[in-house]
């Protein structure tokens, strides 16, 4: 069961997050080369992060992010130490990956 590794740290009034999703991020070209069919392409298409029900980050992504993509992002105005940041990622085939991290 694949998931997202989330590390969140509160620095001053900003929460800095580093997240990693384990995913092949197979591009259409790679799928064709390695498996002979572009239908086998699969990569993360959307990632979002929520805290206490509020969305703090929302991004749509493509096949051009690296394998096992790492994202770093920041937000402020919400979240204190101990709060849990939830992250959800979806891939082209519809599989959902989840992860959470406590703000340290």
């Amino acid at each position, binding site marked *: 069961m694949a998931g997202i590794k989330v590390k969140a740290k509160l620095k001053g009034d*900003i929460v800095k997050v580093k997240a990693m999703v384990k995913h092949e*991020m*197979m*591009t*259409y*070209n*790679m799928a064709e*080369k*390695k498996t002979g069919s*572009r*239908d086998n*392409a699969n990569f993360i*298409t*959307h990632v979002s992060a929520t*805290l206490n029900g*509020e*969305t*703090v*980050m*929302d*991004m*749509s*992504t*493509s*096949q*051009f*992010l*690296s*394998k096992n*993509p*790492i*994202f*770093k*992002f*920041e*937000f*402020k*105005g*919400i979240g204190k130490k101990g709060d849990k940041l939830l992250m959800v990622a*979806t891939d*082209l085939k*519809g599989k959902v990956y989840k992860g959470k991290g406590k703000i340290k």
Partner: protein
Amino acid sequence: MERRKFLSMTLGALALAVVPASVRAEDFRKAKPAVWTAHTVDDAIKAMYGSTALTMEGVQLTAPDVASNGGAIPVNFSTDKDVKSIAVFQDANPEAAVMVVSTTKYSVNKYAIKIKMAKSGTITIVAQGNDGKLYAAKKTLDVALGGCEG
């Protein structure tokens, strides 16, 4: 209707087999489908914002001058402007759009990602200001080992 027309316009411009499979990119939740199938940076920017008029300021972009591994190129970008979204494009892969992040009311617009580039090229970051301007920054880099073949 408009999307199909745009898709067929973009598709018509391509001579490659990349085209038919790219249409499957339409299940991206947020951005407009034509953005993800656009081959050139200009087409993707036009599909995303309706214009290619960029204001080359307000966005900071850091990426290595030479990427030793084209499969994992660190790209850091940020903006202090009041924006609704930030998009990353490059001209070294079959399609130009890499990602689009929407600003939430909590966002501190500073991001770091790792991308793949098949060959040397230019990365363009476009931040859509709430004032209607498209703030942008570009960086051209050399890629030692192409990144699309894994």
